[in-house]
């Protein structure tokens, strides 16, 4: 490990990709912790609901708002109980799934659609590009609240529809970024080189342009993940977001807000979950900015740990 990858590194290139990524992560301790946090959240989202069973949903009106750090009601109540007497900890784990589902769904959907249109807008002629950009403008100026109400009213409140609402509002971000990057990348010499070799449009887009654009998009997506979580909670606050029995952290904060004065833990823990996850995503995206760029990657590649 201490072998520096100096000037011309015939370093054990056989090292598996996973190991390389791990060691690069280890170099940035904050990103490392972030990944652990996110993995944990992801595991909660994946397995939590199945493991918890009814623990997260069983109500107890007469034992509501029990204070945190009291183990007399079992480990699940270590973070207190909510307004319906359900254990906060179990609720948080249970809510992780839909929170992640909404955020990831919205981000992935908007990323795919936005990037696709952005590629087309950036690569195709001026007319197509103009039409797409104007459409993006329209979406940008379309108030997300109205989209939310339209979708909610016409399609009903569900996680899928919430994903739809949030995805629509985020499309322009990816579209604009992709287009701007494509406009720049397509003028680069290696794209010209590919044309000289006879590469088709799809090949140029897929092999030469997309890989250059992807890291930027992924970095933005990571940040956007955080943004979407906050946007979702804002919609919940306004009463046009996720509705029970579905539950997300954002909804929990919103529902806990009347209790801030006398049962702070109802809104505090889910808020903390959002802050921590958002923070982790931000730090991870900073790391990715470097790690996904081959020219900068060396900064994170293994080197003597005694180096400062």
């Amino acid at each position, binding site marked *: 490990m201490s072998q520096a990858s100096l000037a011309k590194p015939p370093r054990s290139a056989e090292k598996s990709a996973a190991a390389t990524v791990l060691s690069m992560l280890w170099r940035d301790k904050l990103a490392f912790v972030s990944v652990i946090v996110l993995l944990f959240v992801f595991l909660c989202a994946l397995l939590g609901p199945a493991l918890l069973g009814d623990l997260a*949903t*069983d*109500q107890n*009106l*007469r034992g*509501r708002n029990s204070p945190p750090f009291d183990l007399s009601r079992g480990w699940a109540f270590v973070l207190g109980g909510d*307004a*319906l007497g359900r254990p906060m900890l179990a609720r948080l784990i249970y809510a992780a799934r839909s929170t992640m589902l909404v955020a990831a769904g919205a981000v992935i959907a908007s990323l795919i659609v936005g990037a696709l249109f952005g590629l087309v807008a950036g690569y195709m002629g001026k007319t197509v590009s103009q039409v797409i950009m104007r459409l993006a403008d329209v979406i940008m100026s379309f108030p997300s609240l109205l989209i939310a*109400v339209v979708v*909610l*009213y016409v399609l*009903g*409140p569900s996680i899928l529809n919430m994903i739809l609402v949030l995805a629509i509002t985020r499309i322009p971000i990816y579209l604009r970024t992709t287009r701007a990057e494509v406009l720049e990348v397509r003028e680069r010499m290696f794209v010209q080189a590919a044309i000289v070799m006879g590469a088709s449009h799809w090949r140029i887009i897929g092999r030469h342009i997309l890989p250059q654009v992807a890291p930027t998009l992924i970095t933005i997506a990571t940040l956007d993940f955080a943004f979407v979580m906050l946007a979702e909670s804002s919609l919940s606050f306004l*009463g*046009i977001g996720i*509705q*029970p*029995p579905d539950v997300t952290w954002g909804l929990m904060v919103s*529902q806990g*807000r*009347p*209790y*801030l*004065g*006398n*049962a702070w833990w109802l809104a505090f823990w889910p808020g903390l979950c959002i802050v921590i996850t958002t923070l982790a995503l931000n730090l991870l995206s900073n790391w990715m900015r470097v790690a996904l760029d081959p020219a900068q990657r060396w900064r994170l590649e293994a080197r003597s740990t005694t180096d400062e």
Partner: protein
Amino acid sequence: MKPLLVGALLASTSVTSALAQTGTDITVVLSEELDLVEPCMATRSNIGRVIMQNISETLTELDVRGDAGLMPRLAESWEDKGNGTWQFKLRQGVTFSDGSAFDAGDVKHSFDRVFSEAITCESKRYFADTKLTFDVVDDTTINVKAEPAQPILPLLMSLVTIVPSETPMEFVRDPIGTGPYVMTEWTAGQQIVLDRRDGYWGAQPAVTKATYVFRSEPAVRAGMVAAGEADIAPQITAEAADNPATDFAYPNSETVYLRLENLDAPTSDIRIRKALNAAIDREAFIGTLLPAGTELAVAMVPPTTLGWNPNLKPPAFDPELAKQLIAEAKADGVDTSLPIEIIARTENFPNVTEVAEALTQMLTDVGFNASLRMVEVAEHEQFYSKPYPEFEGTRLVVAQHDNSRGDPVFSMFFKYASDGTQSGVADPALDEMIAKASAATGDERAALWSETFAYVHDTIVADVLLFHMVGLSRVSERLDFTPTIATNAQLQLSEINFK
């Protein structure tokens, strides 16, 4: 750019500060802004709280503090002339805030406005099937003829505010009334100011000036009174009401219930309806999700209403009974596995979401295939009013109904008659009972309503009646004021005194 900003700041500072209330001026913090300050819309509670009896007055007034029943206001007396005609003797020496004198012509004009095609006045709905003809006898006497005869016409008169006959047939922005206050300022989005006026016919109230401001967050409203920025916060939540010295609970005339469709499977079976009633642990909500003081409902109207039946008992919480009833129904071929969707509206009342979640859980616990759907107000209306959308199972609509008018007639037809807009029942016997009670007067009327309530509650178990709600108001300690059941719909400044 700078002058603009500085200007904006200066402008905002020039607005009277709401801080540090002193003397006899008060500030009231309401939950939502008023769209209109239109007298004929005063029956809408958020408008009524500002206008009703403060700016505009009515001919009659229902006593909610004592048991005086219907009291004179702008009408000094009234009598049934028979044949559906009532004669009202009007108070003399009353002037509007614009200086003009009040007479019978104003009363006629006020009603003409209500029934006008040019504006959509709320109070019109109370006269849905009644045709009124006005006959101005002299300046202080007016005959009102109702077809068909309307036994509670004097009570209905407490719902229509009187405006001067010059008032145009469109929504006004500067309401003129006979009340003790006059609106002196309306800054959209910010505040409405009422000033006490000279020349009011009655006793001068203690409050000289009332400023109404609007904050949607209950914690903020409660906090404003605590911080001295406001004197009355009529609607706060139980969570925010943590100071017994300032926070009052009072029945607010709202009744929460689950509307069942008696024609839909599986709720068409009375055993299922009984099971639903038995499955709900009503007591568990009180003092937890709902404020202490909330009462269990046995009728659509609060106990202060005419004909309320004290003999009815709320169904006991008995999950075993519920399960047994379901099993019986199932044995008789009722498909008890059909989905039951509980429809509740966000922000219908404080903690509505939690209440709906708990209800769902309770129904699920006894074996119903229940699920919850929270909807927003426009969508709720679709489920609540006819025609109801199709559904494979049945929908239970969580609804809140307000009747502070003292008579069940304002509720029973809509909620229980076959043609009622929000009715889940189609029972000819019940239709007849409602019609009979509506037409009756006096003690007979009370008895008939009583009977009807019993029929609905015990005989056909038409719905799942849940709670008579309480409202919570925070009142500054410097005021001598106790909120009442009417505080929901009106807030008479003349009832407020200073300690």
